[in-house]
């Protein structure tokens, strides 16, 4: 099976990406997740199913309800996320260099 392709398909959808972002902040049940979207509840359930199938999200049964959480194994490498943060700053600062250049040129 091509797991990789599955994961790409999973995150190609903006709603599924948004669900991942929500779950990054905290684990939630399907109802709480759905409350953040205009889509019908079954649509959100389908998204959760796809995310679960490719192991980006893990269902965690808590009594009668199921909480969805990010799969720590897939996302465990915090350093890689941090590396993204560094890139974000690098990009910002390169843009700021440009803005400062324009400001200097305007002054002279």
């Amino acid at each position, binding site marked *: 099976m091509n*797991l*990789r392709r599955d*994961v*790409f398909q999973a*995150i190609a959808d*903006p709603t599924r*990406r948004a669900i*991942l*972002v929500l779950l*990054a*902040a*905290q684990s939630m049940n399907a109802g709480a997740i759905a409350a953040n979207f205009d889509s019908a509840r079954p649509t959100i359930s389908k998204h959760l199913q796809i995310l679960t199938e490719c192991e980006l999200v893990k269902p965690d049964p808590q009594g009668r309800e199921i909480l969805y959480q990010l799969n720590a194994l*897939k*996302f465990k*490498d*915090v350093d*890689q*996320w*941090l590396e*993204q*943060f*560094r*890139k*974000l*700053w*690098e*990009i*910002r*600062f390169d*843009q*700021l*260099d*440009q*803005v*400062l*250049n324009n*400001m*200097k040129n305007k*002054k002279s």
Partner: protein
Amino acid sequence: MNLFFDFTIDKENQIIRVKREFAAPLKLVWDAWTQAKYLDQWWAAQGWKGQTISMEFKEGGRRHYRMDGPQGELFYGVTSYDKINLHQDYEGKELFADKEGNADSDYPQSVYTIVFQSQKEHTFIEHVTTYPDMEQLQAAIKYGFKDGCINAYSLLDELLVKS
């Protein structure tokens, strides 16, 4: 030109520290950080558009802005300005907000300080962000990469190659 850049993470204390040199006098760098018309030109990363909705750069003031992504993504943020020493440093909070500018407590919050230092014709800044806990830091990183439009595919690609 090679400009100094340093990025360090203190995971124990949930701190991200960024230092950067700019080839411009302090006054210009300060203005670029504290005036909406300039911030809108650089704060959002490639592909995204940042737009200040309202801004009052004074102690107790804040900037409310929106970020529009290349695929129709949209979110709102608030930067508060809690303490300001003109042309030296300022500090405040970074918050996710709604379109009216109400802070959303479900999303990551952080406290930042930024210090400006002049060195000849150049300016050095040190920007320090402190997150209340590791979960918030991790969440912010995910927002950060969303905010910054770092390509999710290449990121997962890296993760998958490693695993």
